[in-house]
């Protein structure tokens, strides 16, 4: 069209330029862009209305909370947006950090309640540390013996974590010992350090174990981070010291407030510590300090609103999505139905995916970006791999479910519908996504960094481990979190591998049959009862979307914070 009428002097010579057509076109395009967004927003409003039922509350209740929470927060938001943009970001992060922290707390609490006791966690972690220590010590003592180290790398976790399987040698040792009248309690197999710790006659209390193996390591990592950022050893130590102090204080004071000590320690680790470090940094930099007012106003508003509505006797709404929904199992009666076992299933499935897909995906990305030759036979193979990854990303999710069914259940004979099978099937589904996003992150590390590292005499692996990976980590994390968000919502593979339609008891092993959040929601969608359809189902959808929203918001914050410009 651009080349029509070449014989005229210039385009539009004989006519006025008509703006109307262009304007109408622009408006149409804008409407098209907004179409999907607006319709989904409307649907979400409907679902949220069904889940929370705000209009079942007294008008006075709504008015009170509008006055104490909504109006002040909206005013603050407008102020940040118009006048103080850095404060807006501070407000966003300070409100978001506790939410993410509480979500992590919930995840770990579920883990300790359902999957392994604090003692098991303690024993596992100590054993892993010992195994790591053995390997490092060997590296220090005999730096040249690479082959020997390979053996150590393989054997030390076996000894510390898994124990030696029953072998003829063990029988021999045990029999010989028994013949001499000695009983080591070996029973034909050498137990691991982990099992030995669990057999100890005396163990520290739960909170002491948690303090040692969860709070202190995380506090130590945070302290190290602060030390690196500020180049001040004192600040780093202060972080560790204060975290420990707050944790111990809570353990002493917790029972008075009715908070369990374990929960308190988890909250300190995942919510209080990051929030404290962030807030301290904001105050020290002095930029956007008034953003800190946002969460304070929010909390004050809720408290004041609670007091006022309590005093005036306004009844609150009766939402479907409440604490009872999050903590109970599903049921035939809509009022009792909850999503808790399915949430546990989802959390455990995510653990399987993180442990299996993340290392393989990042490893593949490292190979493709850092090692892959571009010529020769290997080069052709690498091109094939790249094309194949692109294609795998487009394979329908139901086919991955079929793969999981055929491979894990029919060939390997693993239990149908178990968490490990679900995790591996969905893990295969997000593998290409993880690889592609990790590749992009690694590619964005400038080549000059690598050259500098090689110039210092580093080998390729040293360059990757100490230069490329730390630089690419935020990008890799962003991509992985987004991929995990996709994994949480996938339903079709779960249906194909036979995840349970609904379970009453939360799973407590990776080989248990379980239901996951989207699977549970799908079972509710076939209930005809309106209180399921417009109540429980909506509550389930909102729960799932809320988890996704928090994950995506985290990923976006990480991306914005560490994005490499240019």
């Amino acid at each position, binding site marked *: 069209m651009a080349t029509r009428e070449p014989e005229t002097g210039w385009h539009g010579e004989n006519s006025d330029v008509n703006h109307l057509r262009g304007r109408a076109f622009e408006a149409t395009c804008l409407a098209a862009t907004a179409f999907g967004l607006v319709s989904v927003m409307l649907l979400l409003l409907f679902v949220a209305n069904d889940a929370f039922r705000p209009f079942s509350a007294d008008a006075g209740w709504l008015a009170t909370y509008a006055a104490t929470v909504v109006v002040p927060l909206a005013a603050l938001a407008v102020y940040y947006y118009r006048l103080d943009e850095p404060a807006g970001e501070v407000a966003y992060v300070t409100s978001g950090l506790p939410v993410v922290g509480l979500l992590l707390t919930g995840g770990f609490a579920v883990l300790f309640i359902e999957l392994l006791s604090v003692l098991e966690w303690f024993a596992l972690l100590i054993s892993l540390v010992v195994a790591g220590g053995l390997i490092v010590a060997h590296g220090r003592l005999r730096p040249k013996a690479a082959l020997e180290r390979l053996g150590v790398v393989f054997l030390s976790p076996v000894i510390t974590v898994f124990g030696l399987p029953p072998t003829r040698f063990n029988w021999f040792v045990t029999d010989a010992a028994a013949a001499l009248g000695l009983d080591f309690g070996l029973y034909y197999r050498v137990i691991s350090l982990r099992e030995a710790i669990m057999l100890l006659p005396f163990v520290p209390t739960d909170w002491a174990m948690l303090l040692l193996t969860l709070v202190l390591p995380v506090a130590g990592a945070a302290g190290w981070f602060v030390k690196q950022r500020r180049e001040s050893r004192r600040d780093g130590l202060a972080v560790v010291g204060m975290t420990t102090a707050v944790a111990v204080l809570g353990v002493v004071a917790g029972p008075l407030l009715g908070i369990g000590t374990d929960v308190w320690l988890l909250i300190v680790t995942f919510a209080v510590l990051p929030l404290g470090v962030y807030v301290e940094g904001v105050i020290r930099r002095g930029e956007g300090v008034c953003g800190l007012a946002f969460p304070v106003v929010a909390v004050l508003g809720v408290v004041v609103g609670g007091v006022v509505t309590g005093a005036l006797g306004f009844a609150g709404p009766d939402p479907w999505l409440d604490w009872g929904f999050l903590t109970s199992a599903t049921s035939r009666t809509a009022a009792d139905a909850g999503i808790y076992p399915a949430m546990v299933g989802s959390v455990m499935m995510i653990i399987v995916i993180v442990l299996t897909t993340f290392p393989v995906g990042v490893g593949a990305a490292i190979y493709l970006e850092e*090692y892959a030759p571009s010529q020769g036979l290997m080069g052709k193979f690498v091109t094939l791999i790249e094309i194949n990854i*692109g294609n795998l990303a487009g394979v329908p999710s139901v086919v991955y479910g079929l793969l999981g069914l055929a491979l894990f259940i029919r060939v390997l004979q693993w239990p149908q519908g178990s968490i490990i099978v679900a995790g591996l099937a969905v893990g*295969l589904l997000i593998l*290409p996504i993880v690889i592609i996003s990790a590749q992009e992150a690694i590619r964005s590390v400038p080549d000059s960094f690598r050259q500098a590292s090689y110039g210092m005499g580093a080998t390729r692996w040293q360059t990757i481990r100490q230069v490329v990976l730390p630089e690419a980590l935020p990008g890799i994390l962003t991509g992985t979190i987004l991929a995990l968000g*996709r994994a949480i919502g996938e339903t079709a593979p779960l249906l194909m591998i036979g995840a349970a339609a609904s379970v009453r008891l939360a799973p407590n092993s990776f080989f248990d049959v379980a239901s996951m959040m989207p699977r549970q929601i799908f079972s509710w969608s076939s209930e005809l009862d309106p209180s399921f359809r417009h109540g429980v189902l909506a509550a389930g959808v909102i729960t799932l979307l809320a988890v996704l929203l928090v994950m995506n918001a985290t990923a976006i914050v990480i991306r914005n914070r560490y994005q490499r410009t240019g």
Partner: protein
Amino acid sequence: MSTETPGPDITSRPTGRAARERMYRYVLLLCAAASILVTVSIVVLLARDAITFFTLVNPVDFFTGTEFLISRNVYGLLPLLSGTLLVTVISAVIALPTGVAAAVYLSEYASDQMRSVLKPGLEILAGIPTVVYGIFALVYVTPFLQTIGLPVNTFNILSASIMVGIMIIPMVSSLSEDAMSSVPDSLRQAGYGMGATKFEVTTGVVVPAAASGIFSSFILALSRAIGETMIVVVAAGSRPRMLNFSDPLANLFQGYQPMTAAMVQINSADSVSQLGFTSLFAIGLTLFVITFLLNLLSNRIAARYREEYE
């Protein structure tokens, strides 16, 4: 390992280190090769049972049969294909024009501020789990269609397809926008230099120049619609049905069972014969082949436009 003293390392014989470097290389290569393994195992495992199925059911009967009834051991793919075709066509009618218009707006018209709101918004659309879209269709869209007077059944292909369409809009818009943004500015300047308006430059220069990229996004979106499972399982019903050519409009208001939905149903049914169960793999393999070919085609076309302008 990083803690070794650097002094002696420079002069020492590098055998240990070289061996380790090689080991890392091979371990990482294994990770990369795992993706090939995934593809191979999909093909092999699906083909294994599909071949069992095709030894008992004539492939010609399978691909041309007009009835799909597992209880009577009648396996004809056409009713399932009808459902898939309907979903793909309806959702394409919704998503392709909308997606391209959105891409035009984002690439040519939107201010930076608008872009910073609209683009993440569209990304969110792509991030919503498909089972949620299915529930939207079943619980909210179908009753809405009934209130505005369309004679839709409880389970119908129309509301499912609308939701599939909305779901694939972001895919069309983001890939098409990439293609439009990679059209060099010199082409636009040339258009303006000829006295063309913005509308004429956009429709006459940018869109044709980005045509292959747009086309490749179309194919990818179609492939996504063909493979979409949860929306149709939740909202499109569970009755395989042939297209009714005598009354085309009525097709929209009935329930259908696309291939993906049939796979889920066969797998979750309580009593399925061995033959019925292996038909699952035959359908799955067909689906895999169709989507794989479409993806390959789309990549080919996309690779062409990248060469043109880079």
